[in-house]
């Protein structure tokens, strides 16, 4: 009986917590409008949000009354803003959207794979590696729509971003939305204590190495044993950028035959530099998953992390002053793109125009810029830089300048089926390298060999 009293109390507490939460009830944005979004999507008319220069445009009348199922792999504030923009489209075009969060990138990939097998896929999806599920299945309808309609101005999109939507150089099969690059963030308090003048930031990795040396010498203002000068929370992403910066193309695509080449002399130079950071004690060995917590805890001076942190690491999220610089480079600035794309998966051809209108609506200059500024992802349109809201954002937060400046040298390699395996192989190789379980050449050779083996077994 005694044991039941606390159980009953807990049950009462549970009911109380549930009812108290009702004060601020959830509002389903797909059906009941927008209620609590902090980033307001601007009001537009359909005509104002579309390009008008192309020969054919799907009209409101063609698509009104249709319904689309949409899966999206963004959560938190990004998910909310995605919902809000979708709701706006629903209101303007009379298309009923059934939106469903599909989990993280891995979950969504599993869900879409299973759905494609059973023909239960959504009509549209916002997901990572989308071209694998469209171009990979021989579906290049988006390339056709780009040619035959004027709903989306491809010429206004940064070149690297359209490459990100290509499958095996066979054609465009996705539209970028929720794209990011890595940005080098830093703790201004630490750099100030270390006496580093960040008005003239390091441009190359060599200069960056010298800065890290000063940081380790004088920058440990928290007095922590675990203090480090630099880290990244996504080592494979950064390493791929560094490879390109040093002239290593990562993979070769010879008419659909993929050959990984990230074990050549240029790649080994990069890996040796990586190892030197660990050997000098500037970067932790194989502790990258803790990098973000260490940085936000004031225990790390620099972190290379996604540009989408710009909107998340707001003033109340950090107890120090935050800054950002453009990513250092070896011989040429270059940054690998990451993030999500919109894909059309519908098998119902009668829904194709509605799906395309929805995709092009989300990705047009106005809405994409709204999404970018609300989430920290990057605008995909060159013309976005001229928009007043972008200028205002840059004026309010200097870190946007860094992220937007980097857009001019972003790139993407073609999507291929084993690209996930490649990232895993690079991560594993770097982990072993950091722990001294092999030389750069040995470990990269092994990673390339195993990746090639998987490609050949396909």
């Amino acid at each position: 009986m005694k044991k039941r009293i606390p159980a009953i109390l807990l049950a009462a507490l549970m009911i109380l917590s549930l009812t108290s939460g009702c004060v601020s009830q959830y509002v389903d944005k797909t059906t009941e409008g927008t209620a609590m979004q902090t980033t307001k999507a601007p009001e537009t008319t359909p005509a104002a949000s579309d390009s008008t220069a192309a020969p054919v445009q799907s009209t409101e009348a063609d698509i009104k009354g249709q319904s689309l199922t949409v899966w999206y792999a963004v959560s938190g504030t990004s998910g909310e803003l995605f919902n809000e923009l979708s709701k706006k489209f629903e209101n303007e075009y009379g298309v009923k959207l059934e939106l469903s969060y599909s989990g993280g990138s891995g979950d969504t990939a599993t869900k879409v794979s299973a759905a494609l097998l059973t023909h239960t896929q959504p009509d549209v999806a916002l997901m990572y590696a989308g071209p694998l599920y469209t171009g990979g299945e021989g579906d290049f309808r988006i390339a056709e729509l780009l040619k035959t309609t004027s709903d989306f101005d491809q010429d206004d999109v940064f070149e690297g971003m359209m490459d990100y939507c290509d499958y095996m150089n066979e054609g465009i099969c996705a539209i970028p939305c929720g794209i990011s690059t890595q940005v080098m963030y830093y703790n201004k308090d630490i750099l100030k204590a270390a006496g580093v003048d960040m008005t003239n930031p390091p441009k190359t990795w060599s200069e960056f190495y010298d800065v890290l040396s000063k940081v380790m010498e004088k920058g440990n203002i928290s007095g922590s044993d675990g203090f480090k000068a630099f880290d990244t929370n996504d080592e494979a992403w950064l390493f791929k950028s560094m490879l390109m910066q040093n002239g290593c193309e990562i993979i070769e695509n010879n008419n659909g035959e993929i050959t990984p080449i990230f074990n050549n002399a240029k790649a080994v130079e990069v890996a040796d530099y990586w190892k030197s950071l660990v050997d000098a004690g500037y970067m932790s060995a194989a502790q990258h998953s803790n990098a973000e917590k260490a940085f936000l805890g004031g225990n790390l001076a620099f972190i290379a992390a996604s540009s989408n942190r710009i909107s998340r690491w707001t003033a109340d999220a950090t107890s120090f002053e935050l800054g950002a610089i453009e990513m250092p480079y070896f011989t040429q600035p270059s940054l690998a793109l990451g993030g999500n794309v919109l894909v059309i998966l519908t098998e119902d051809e009668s829904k194709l125009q509605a799906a395309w209108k929805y995709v092009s609506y989300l990705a047009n200059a106005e809405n994409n810029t709204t999404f970018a500024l609300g989430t920290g992802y990057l605008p995909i349109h060159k013309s976005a830089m001229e928009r007043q809201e972008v200028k205002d954002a840059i004026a309010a937060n200097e870190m946007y300048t860094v992220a937007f400046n980097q857009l001019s040298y972003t790139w993407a390699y073609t999507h291929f089926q084993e690209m996930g395996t490649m990232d895993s192989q690079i991560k594993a190789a770097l982990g072993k390298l950091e722990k001294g379980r092999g030389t750069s050449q040995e470990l990269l050779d092994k990673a390339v060999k195993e990746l090639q083996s998987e490609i050949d077994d396909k």
Partner: protein
Amino acid sequence: MSKATKVKYSYNRHTVSFIVLFLLSLAMIFPFVWMILSSFKTAADVYQYPPRWIPSVWNWKNYSQVFSMIPFLRYYWNSILTTVAETALQIVISILAAYSLVHLKWPGQGFVAAVMRSSMFVPMVVTMIPMYLLCASLGLIDTYSGIILPQITTAFTTFLIMSYFASIPQDMIDAAKLDGCGPAGIMMRVVVPNTKGAIATATLFSFLGNWKSYTWPLIITTKTEYRTLPIGLKYLTQESSSEYQVMMAAAVMTILPVLIVFIFFEKQLVRSITLTGMKS
């Protein structure tokens, strides 16, 4: 050794045991305390180094934010419904299977047991796509049945119950047979009543496993009205990073049913663990 020395030795021994157990208890309860305190912190407090134990400001907004970001009540109800159904069905099926494998004799019994045992070594990710195909062909996508049915059989629960059923003395079974009990009567009147503690343990494990089930409910559902709490918790996270304070507020509310179930079953759980070491 004099009586006084013995008493002193015993006293010292108990004191040391008490201190060790107290420290272990603190270590066990630490994550819970941290979770509750973090649910009231601001983002800056959560990431502060050295860690801040007590929130600088008691931020109750984290709780209301949970309700504004996801349909928490709907997810809560769905989790309770599916977890209770899955657990009840798992236990009933496991009892029947365990009794059949331990106390009945039938052809192929060993083979079936071996197949069941080997299924424990197959990760769920391997069976997920075939399971999805099956559910899709049966029209179970976006239904409670689709969430529940594929999760009602678990080899682990069956083998856990089997190990306890095997401890029932054969003499007791034979006596029941002499008294006129059939297989069902023996199971319901002899075996199950004598292994209540074990069944409670299996129920607890089963409940915990089902309560935190994430991947399958995510794969098989797309509509909000069928989604469960773990999916809601995942939605609260930002891509690759989290607003931990909001997640902790959701986690505090999420673990309450688990605590309630644990408190109700604690007596049986402890008893079953104690009996595990005793010979029949």
